[in-house]
């Protein structure tokens, strides 16, 4: 029912996909929603895996999410219902399924919560060789309610995580060696960029303008077990106008925070701020799991700042380093400007 003139229609057609979400947007919102809705939404995450499967599903955006997600959700939430409603552990299948999903949490993209757990693991002095089955299982719903439960609950303690994963892998009565978060390989998801796990700062009032606090520095990545909790640098926080005062997050959470806040800053027009956040990420996590996203965002931020030559260099370097990256599409035009 359009009777705009030619120019108007052309203009609209030109801007047609300008407001579409990026893959990162999609992954980020999906993860956040899955956290809020838990098992009830079935957003490809199931009840059990919380962060991990969310991230996985989000990363898989299309096929992986809908195909894998459906089954994951079914198995996972059935388990959650059992646990939450009556705490009856009956079916080995359910347990297996749950734990299998739990295993998926150990994806590099699973950011904040895992590393929260990871942090605790570092802090927790006691190594528990064989956790009793009940706590290990109870991990499942606790993780589903990730924000609340992990924040407060013993059940989310690292040894349970490790035990849960270990059992999942062993599949038998004898727990195999726990797969700790630290052992996660830094490999990227094969088809999609590592999803963003955005720490929800304000669960209660979601519509408020985000506070834009920037993250703190943290120990390098989850891939190398840091000796202690001391953060390697609180240095940038002081000098950087975009960096916050608090230093609470470590590991992948810190990474995700920096990059996510960088993205937000860039999208809200504060490109300089974005750049400083992303540079901070590059300093602290040069080879972090979100390095790919950071490099892409950095190029975009440079472009937004009008630093064309640097943007071009960054984009070209990105495309060389990650030739198969889906983020490349957004950078190609920057790199092409040089040819």
């Amino acid at each position, binding site marked *: *029912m359009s*009777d*705009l*003139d030619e120019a*108007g229609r052309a*203009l*609209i057609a*030109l*801007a047609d996909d*300008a*407001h579409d*979400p990026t893959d990162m*947007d*999609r992954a*980020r*919102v*999906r993860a956040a*929603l899955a956290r*809020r809705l838990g098992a*009830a*939404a*079935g*957003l490809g995450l199931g009840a059990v895996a919380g962060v991990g499967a969310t991230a996985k599903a989000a990363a898989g955006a299309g096929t992986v*999410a*809908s195909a894998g*997600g459906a089954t994951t*959700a079914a198995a996972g*939430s*059935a388990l*959650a219902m059992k*646990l*939450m*409603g*009556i705490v009856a552990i009956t079916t080995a299948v359910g347990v297996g399924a749950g734990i299998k999903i739990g295993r998926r949490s150990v994806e590099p993209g699973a950011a904040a919560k895992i590393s929260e757990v990871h942090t605790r693991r570092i802090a927790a002095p006691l190594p528990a060789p064989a956790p009793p089955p009940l706590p290990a299982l109870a991990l499942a*719903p*606790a993780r*589903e*309610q990730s924000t*609340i*439960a992990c924040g*407060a*609950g*013993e*059940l*989310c303690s690292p040894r349970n995580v490790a035990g849960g994963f270990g059992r999942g892998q062993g599949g038998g009565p004898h727990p195999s060696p726990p797969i700790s978060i630290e052992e996660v390989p830094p490999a990227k998801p094969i088809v999609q960029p590592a999803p963003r796990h955005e720490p929800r700062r304000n669960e209660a009032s*979601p*519509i408020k*303008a*985000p506070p834009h606090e920037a993250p703190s520095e943290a120990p390098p990545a989850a891939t190398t077990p840091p000796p202690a909790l001391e953060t390697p640098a609180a240095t940038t926080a002081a000098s950087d106008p975009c960096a916050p005062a608090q230093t609470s997050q470590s590991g992948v959470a810190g990474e995700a925070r920096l990059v996510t806040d960088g993205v*937000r800053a860039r*999208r*809200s*027009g504060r490109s300089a701020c974005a750049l400083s956040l992303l540079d901070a990420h590059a300093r602290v996590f040069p080879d972090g799991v979100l390095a790919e996203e950071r490099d892409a965002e950095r190029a975009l931020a440079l*472009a937004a700042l*009008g630093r064309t030559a640097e*943007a071009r260099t960054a984009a070209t370097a990105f495309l060389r380093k990650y030739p198969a990256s889906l983020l490349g599409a957004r950078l190609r*035009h*920057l790199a*092409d*400007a040089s040819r």
Partner: protein
Amino acid sequence: MRPGWLRRTHTPASAFVAGRARRRTWFAKVYDAHFTFVWRSARRLGTPEANLDDVVQEIFMVAFRRQDEFEGRSSVKTWLYGIVFNVVRAHRRELAQKHPEVIDGDRRADSDRLIDGGEGPQEHLSKREAARFIDRFLDSLDEDRRAVFVLAELEQLTAPEIALVVGARLNTVYSRLRLARVEFTQAIERQRARDSRRTP
């Protein structure tokens, strides 16, 4: 303190579980199929970039809570548009009350950026400029016309569908659309005039 999952109450009845499973699948499908347009529409209807994540989440939260109301009375898309429209409007009103500078500030920032944005090859530049032009134009419209224009011209809904979404009469929709189109044409004319002054 009890862990979060213990604080929730769930009915373990199997019927309940089955119902939940069905809803879950349905909702996940809706989410996958419509995320893009929800995001896009939330932007176009005037959510500030910085709040998009939260608003889109809220839209799906509402959709999730209200899925029982849906039951095929309209298309899923129209139903979702209605939620998008309401959530975005509520959000903008809240913003306008608490932080009037946010919405106005966005507008100023956008027009500033249009002037200094000069990098990139032509194809990309013009695409981006088109997007910015449309953003600024939408920001210049009043809320009602903006919604109708977005839904009709950008999202290609029919007038009866729009009437459903925005809860207005069909004639009102037509009249708002007509006015918005006139404004759009005028905006294009003004932009042309500016361009020709800048590059003689």
